[in-house]
């Protein structure tokens, strides 16, 4: 009869393997850039790619490895919009609010998404960590305004209804997993 602990094993093992793999990756990234302080931003970009955000302990580790004060690394991480210090949802929805998209009514799409997922500007990730909704300024696909990107997929000429439907499709497919 397998013990409760053993039943939990796969999850913990997965988490452990992931933690180790990620940490090894961070060390590799630092080595690749020769621990060069000037390369802080590309290093953070790649570290974030690995963890999907920038955990505090990892930032401290990067700071110590590069010989930089942690306050400085924190300052850089909080300056650039791409760096996230809190975990993001599995699906990051970015809505373009560049001029062309704005003029073609991107805001109603944002409001529809906020309403459907009970989110706001201050709270933009759903509690089940499934969705993060953000605005981004100009993806340069202005001919397709309004533009919405889901993870890396670009969708053009979006409407509020289409956006909400997309979200519901994702919820359905995730629920069946």
């Amino acid at each position, binding site marked *: 009869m397998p013990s409760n602990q053993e039943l939990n094993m796969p999850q913990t093992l997965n988490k452990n393997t992931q933690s180790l793999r990620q940490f090894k990756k961070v060390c590799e990234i630092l080595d690749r850039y020769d621990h060069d302080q000037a*390369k802080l931003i590309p290093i953070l970009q790649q570290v974030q790619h690995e963890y999907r955000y920038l955990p505090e302990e990892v930032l401290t580790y990067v700071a110590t490895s590069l010989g930089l004060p942690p306050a400085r690394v924190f300052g850089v991480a909080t*300056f650039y919009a791409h760096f996230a210090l809190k975990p993001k949802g599995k699906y990051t929805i970015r809505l373009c609010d560049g001029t*062309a998209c*704005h003029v073609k009514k991107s805001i109603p799409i944002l409001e529809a998404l906020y309403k459907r997922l009970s989110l706001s500007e201050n709270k933009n990730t759903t509690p089940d960590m499934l969705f993060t909704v953000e605005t981004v300024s100009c993806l340069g696909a202005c001919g397709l305004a309004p533009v919405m990107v889901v993870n890396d997929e670009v969708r053009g000429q979006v409407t509020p209804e289409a956006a909400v439907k997309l979200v519901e499709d994702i919820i359905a497919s995730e629920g069946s997993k």
Partner: protein
Amino acid sequence: MKTAVINLDQVSKEYIDAANKITRRVVICAGTGCVANGALKVYDAFLSETSAAGVDVVTELRAEETKGDLRISRSGCQGFCQMGPLVTIEPEGILYTRVKPEDAAEIVRTTLIEGALVDRLLYVDPVSGTRCTGTAEIPFYARQSRTVLKKCGHIDPEDIIEYIAAEGYTAAREAYTRMTPQTICEEILHSGLRGRGGGGFPTGRKWDLTRKQPGPKKYVICNGDEGDPGAFMDRSVMEGNPHSVIEGMMIAARAIGADEGYVYVRAEYPLAVSRIRKAVTDAEAMGLLGDNVFGTEHSFHIDVMEGAGAFVCGEETALIGSIEGKRGMPLPKPPFPAQSGLFGKPTVINNVETLASVPIIMRMGAAEFRSYGTESSPGTKTFALTGHVVNTGLIEVPFGATLREIVYNIGGGVTNDRGEVTGESFKAVQIGGPSGGCLTEEHLELPLDFDSLKGVGAMVGSGGLVVMNKQTCMVRMARYFMQFTQNESCGKCVLCREGTKQMLALLDDIIEGNATGHTLEMLEKLAIAVQKGSLCGLGKTAPNPILSLMRHFRAEYEAHVHQKRCPAGECKALAIPEIDPEKCKGCTMCAKKCPVGAISGEVKKPHVISAEVCIKCGACVAACKFDAVML
């Protein structure tokens, strides 16, 4: 280790020989816009359909491999973004629009095999109603002078050999082997090339100033941090013709004496990033970049860096700070980067389009370059035409083209909110993005160039052109731009950091109907202080939309403030309630509740609210039992 010096002429000849065997070419636009609309699937469909039809296809031209005389390739942005995915067939110059993967079969059969047109995929000119076979007949294209963009929609941006075959890298070769830094600077100076990123500073002079600084370490940086919302010119050049940028950088490096260069690209442009990276790798593999360029004692290495989401990093000192691993906070100038730039060394920073223009100038010669454009602003400029206009997309015109030509001839006219062209919808054009100003009806005949625009309180900027129709509230537009700038302010200097926030608050007051007589006065004072006193270009130009819009549309501002009314009808807080005549039962409850007697109407007949008297208190909305009063 010295690699053998590449023989450009030989590579070129081999390619051209192979290309001569090709009788037909299908070019599928693979710029970000078309890709988002499925262009890559269209490309795959063409490959599978031609295979199914038993037609031999060449995707990459190499002398040994060529079998078949049909070539299918992808290109960078062809410019007519809203009509994408775009497929061009050469040599006929046929342009098919809105092509879906399902259409590939028909095109292969009808056009490639049978030689006829698929009419339903041709562009129909909304004005004349005619079907246009190719770009020569489409006003959007016909009126442009695609020079920098010439190759963008045509060549395969991932094929360095195709670039070489069209005289690519010959200007760089000339620069390294037969010219001196001084003569290069002179040539660019004579051409009159001015920075295309917004500053309009003479490129030749910038290079010469840097050239004169003591070495040995100097840098060349390509500023690909195009962050203006609504601008995608640089993106298209980087995606469509990345080697032109690299060649430009090489020539700049030779001119100033730099051995290291950076391309700084926004991470929001993943396709541009990957194309530039590939271009650098390919150029290195061919020995064009690296040690001993063209067999000389000079070396040049390029590193590609992705931005991390900060518009302010388009400012040169902030960009430099970013490359140094710091927060992107601008520095006071002087000292200028030419003197003390990256890591404290003399540095030239140029915009993507500027650099892409350099090989063109070197090949055609300064004199011929000057034949385009105006006296003070030679050459052409790319613009991103967007907004309430029929044809949106990427265009290139010579300096001196008028606003009318761009908006009406190329753009096809101004649309109202229902998408119709009525001929009376034009209100304004925002030029230069959030740092720019607006042009109004009185400027329609204005020839656009650096100096003429400055003269009317606007600027070329990076080239974003947003057309606005009469249903656009100018106050809201100013607020939109101010919010953008405020969000992107780095926070270093108090005027920009706090000033933009306060200007935003004042604009909100105006939009929400809370403004007083002082609001406009304060807004103007604050705007001028921020413009004069800020540390960097972002702060200095942040108030431009406000000042420009106040200058040209003061009446609209005053209507918001004094009459609490939005002439364009966009500001909800200032909208007066309306009574729906179909729901109104004429019960007069609303008229009785109205404290100012703004509602009139006979019993049992639909009532009407007077816009001038209404104070928007909402009592009528609450009073109506039939939901007939709406905001």
